[in-house]
C-alpha cells in the first residue's frame, strides 16, 4: 500500500499568560514561574500541519497546498499577534499552554480538513514542541 503525506509549516506570533484565576500573583508564580508574569509574554510559534491522501492521477496532488492554506490560514489569522488568554475566547476557559493551543488548532483544522489531517506539531520555542493527533487516523510510524 502506498502512503503519501504532505506537511507544511506556518508561523504565528502570540502572547499569553499562564495563571489560575483567583490566585494571587505570588501563588501563580509558584505554579507557573515566569510564565505567570502579570503583563504576559510571547512566542513565535511554528505550526507543522501534516495531511494524508492518495495522489490524484490528474492533478498530481495528494493534498493541494491550497487546501492546506485554506484550512490553516483562518486559524493563523485568529491567533497571530493576539494575546491568547484575553483575545481568543477559547483560552479564557483553557490555559493557553502549548498543549492546549495544539489541541485547539487540531479541533479547528479537523473541521476544514477532516480525516485527511493526521498530525500537527506546534513548536513554542526552539527547545519545546507539542504534538497532537488521533491514534486511529495516524497509523504512521514514519
Amino acid at each position, binding site marked *: 500500500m*502506498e502512503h503519501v503525506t504532505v506537511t507544511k509549516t506556518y508561523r504565528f506570533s502570540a502572547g499569553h499568560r499562564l495563571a489560575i484565576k483567583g490566585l494571587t500573583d505570588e501563588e501563580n508564580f509558584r505554579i507557573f514561574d515566569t510564565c505567570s508574569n502579570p503583563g504576559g509574554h510571547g512566542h513565535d510559534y511554528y505550526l507543522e500541519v501534516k495531511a494524508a491522501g492518495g495522489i490524484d492521477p490528474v492533478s498530481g496532488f*495528494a493534498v493541494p497546498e491550497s487546501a492546506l492554506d485554506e484550512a490553516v490560514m483562518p486559524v493563523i489569522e485568529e491567533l497571530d499577534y493576539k494575546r491568547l488568554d484575553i483575545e481568543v475566547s477559547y483560552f479564557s476557559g483553557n490555559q493557553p499552554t502549548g498543549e492546549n493551543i495544539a489541541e485547539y488548532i487540531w479541533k479547528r483544522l479537523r473541521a476544514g480538513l477532516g480525516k485527511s489531517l493526521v498530525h500537527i506539531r506546534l513548536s513554542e520555542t526552539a527547545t519545546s514542541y507539542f504534538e497532537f493527533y488521533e491514534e486511529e487516523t495516524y497509523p504512521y510510524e514514519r
Partner: protein
Amino acid sequence: MGYRKLLTKRMDFSASHRYWNPEWSEEKNKEVFGKSASPHGHGHNYALELTVEGEADPETGMIINLYDLKKIMKEVLEDFDHKHLNEDNPHFKTLVPTTENIARVLWDGFKERIPGDERCRLYRVRLYETRDMYVDYWRDED
C-alpha cells in the same frame, strides 16, 4: 518492544518545473495550479532525505555503506538536478511534476537499486520542495 534501526542520507538538488495538464484549458490549469502554471516554469531547491531500515552488518557495522548510498542517490538524481523536469525528465512528459509525483518516481528509482532484503530496505522518501513544505512517501510492500 522491538526496535528499528534507520539510516538517512540527505541530498539537495535544484530543478525547475511547470504544473500543467495538457488535457485542460488554460483557465482550468491556472485555476488549479495558480502561479505554478506559468509558461516557462520556475524552480526550487529541493532537499531529498532517503531513509533505509535494516540491520547493521556484523563486520562493517553498516546497514548500507553511505558511499554506495550516495552513488545510488546521485545516479537517481541525475535526471533531476539542474533539469527542467517537464522537458528533460522522461517521467514527466505527461505526469505533473508535483512534489508527490516526484517522491513516487524517486522511490521507484531507489527501489530498482535497493530491492530490499533482511539487511537493508527502503523506509521513506522525504522530499522538501521548500523549507516550509515536504512530502513523505513510502510503500508497505516494499
